[in-house]
């Protein structure tokens, strides 16, 4: 590697390249951070990925890494890597809003487990990224603090709800980022922004300190620009946490091991109904097919599989997630933290506070969820949705008898224009039609870029695996990534085509 000191492109490098450069004495954690902060300065006025840049905290963390380097100590793999954190993760002493007015003044008195682990390992925080309010949305337009712009086309959405994290990683405003995925909120924005997004198995990464949306569906996920970096980041944060009762006891592992083992003989299941589904854009279908062809060239066998109840998964999701949200969001009542709007008596104070503090989509989902759980409707809606969830899980079990991984487009469309679906919640919900099944089943799933459509917008290729089979998902994604060699970077232009 050449001398990279002072190079503004440092934030564009892979984490594993930066890790090598750090250890080789070619650069320092402080230089890497300063280059990344300069990039934020240059582009974030038009991208708006960040709600808060934490330059002071980041500089202190980077200086500590450089001190450890000078002392000649061994460094963890994530040390010195600039990481952006979605604003739904509690960070001690750093304001955390979940993209909502109701939490606008909130300064958490503790760290979430994923950031606590990264911080202890020497990772450097760049800032808190914009997101849909309480992670509810597929376009980032539901943030109370304004939309994020897609770095590939500034008039388009970055996807959501982790839109700020995806956009930041896409244009070198961070090397990695943390996100959360409840119905596709890591994979869909990763697809729309041309980066790698992973949602591991439910319970694989602790959710302690993740602001709750729908507890039986919430997953912590990662953003990076390569599968290798994704595996490194996952290895640093996966594992059991006594503070999260849903966290899995299975021992963590080094997910970078075995990445290069290839896909010879691997059975790749394809849900053919999904490709012919109305609403799947031709550009998405073509790029996805090119990905399948690449896997076959590498020796994988593509086999058809069926997920007969996938059509119902979306309906089930839009009952289960709002039902759980209506319960989780009951805590925002103007008593212990966040906004308070005074009223005559406590009930009026609660009601006014929530009316003033929540945005449209959050209100819609609270009403939807409250209705689905209310007397006389519980069995018809929430109860039935939970049964559909069982059927979706059975479908996957059946499909994984014939396939080692299941491939699908991540999203039926590429990035759409800001405002295009804002008044049509149901059309917006359809953005998640291919990502929701893996959340309902809790299985690991990744999105990697597999090409661009006719307008030059990136397309995501999704690979889903069995519970806790992250190694196969990562290995197949890594092989596909190497074969496709997708190297295009976002152009930060305001319109395309």
């Amino acid at each position, binding site marked *: 590697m050449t001398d990279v000191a002072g190079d503004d492109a440092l934030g564009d490098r892979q984490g594993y390249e930066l890790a090598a450069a750090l250890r080789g004495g070619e650069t320092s954690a402080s230089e890497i951070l300063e280059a990344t902060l300069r990039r934020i300065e240059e582009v974030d006025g038009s991208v708006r990925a960040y709600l808060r840049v934490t330059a002071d905290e980041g500089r202190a963390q980077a200086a500590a890494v450089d001190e450890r380097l000078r002392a000649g100590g061994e460094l963890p793999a994530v040390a010195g890597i600039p990481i952006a954190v979605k604003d739904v993760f509690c960070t001690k002493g750093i304001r955390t809003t979940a993209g909502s007015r109701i939490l606008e003044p909130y300064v958490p008195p503790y760290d979430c487990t994923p950031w606590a682990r990264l911080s202890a390992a020497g990772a450097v925080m760049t800032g808190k990224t914009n997101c849909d309010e309480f992670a509810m949305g597929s376009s980032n337009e539901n943030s109370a603090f304004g939309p994020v712009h897609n770095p590939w086309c500034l008039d388009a959405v970055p996807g959501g709800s982790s839109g700020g994290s995806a956009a930041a990683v896409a244009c070198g405003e961070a090397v990695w980022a943390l996100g959360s995925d409840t119905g596709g909120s890591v994979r869909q924005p990763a697809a729309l922004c041309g980066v790698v997004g992973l949602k591991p198995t439910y*319970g694989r990464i602790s959710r302690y300190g993740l602001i709750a949306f729908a507890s039986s569906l919430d997953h912590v996920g990662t953003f990076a620009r390569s599968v290798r970096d994704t595996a490194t980041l996952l290895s640093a944060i996966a594992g059991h946490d006594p503070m999260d009762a849903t966290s899995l006891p299975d021992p963590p592992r080094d997910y970078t091991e075995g990445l290069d083992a290839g896909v010879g003989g691997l059975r790749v299941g394809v849900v053919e109904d999904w490709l012919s589904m109305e609403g799947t854009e031709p550009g998405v279908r073509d790029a996805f097919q090119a990905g399948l062809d690449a896997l076959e060239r590498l020796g994988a066998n593509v086999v058809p599989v069926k997920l007969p109840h996938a059509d119902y998964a979306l309906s089930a999701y839009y009952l289960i997630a709002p039902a759980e949200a209506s319960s989780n969001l009951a805590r925002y009542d103007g*008593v*212990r*933290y966040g906004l308070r709007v005074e009223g005559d008596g406590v009930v009026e104070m609660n009601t006014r506070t*929530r009316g003033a503090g929540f945005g449209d989509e959050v209100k819609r989902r609270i*009403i939807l969820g*409250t*209705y689905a759980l209310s007397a006389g409707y519980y069995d018809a809606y929430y*109860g039935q949705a939970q049964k559909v969830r069982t059927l979706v899980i059975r479908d996957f079990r059946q499909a994984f008898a014939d396939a080692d991984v299941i491939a699908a487009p991540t999203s039926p469309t590429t990035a759409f224009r800001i405002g295009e679906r804002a008044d049509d919640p149901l059309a917006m919900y359809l953005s998640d039609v291919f990502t929701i099944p893996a959340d309902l089943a809790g299985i690991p799933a990744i999105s990697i870029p597999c090409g661009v459509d006719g307008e030059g917008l990136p397309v995501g290729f999704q690979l889903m695996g069995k519970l806790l089979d992250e190694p196969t998902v990562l290995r197949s994604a890594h092989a596909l990534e190497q074969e496709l060699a997708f190297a295009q970077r976002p152009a930060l232009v305001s319109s395309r085509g």
Partner: protein
Amino acid sequence: MAVDIDLEHVARLARLQLTQEERARFGPQLELILEHARKVGEVAADDVPPTSHPVPRANVYRGDEPRPCLTHEEALSNAPDPFEGRFRVPRIVEDE
């Protein structure tokens, strides 16, 4: 059959103030979403058990060991109206 949702009643259950304009806007949107959502009833047969968690775990407890926790000041640091070490709220009980 159209889905009928009593917005005023549900909003009261959720302690959520809605303006006239919000009620007019959300009503038709929610009916459309519920029309779509009630499709779940088409396939969920009686003999299918419900799933509440994708990876079920039961009786998960932490060891009952003392460990550091938030201080009194930290716990109150975000309170909109802290008062003498407590969270103060408006009147709860109606006057006689």
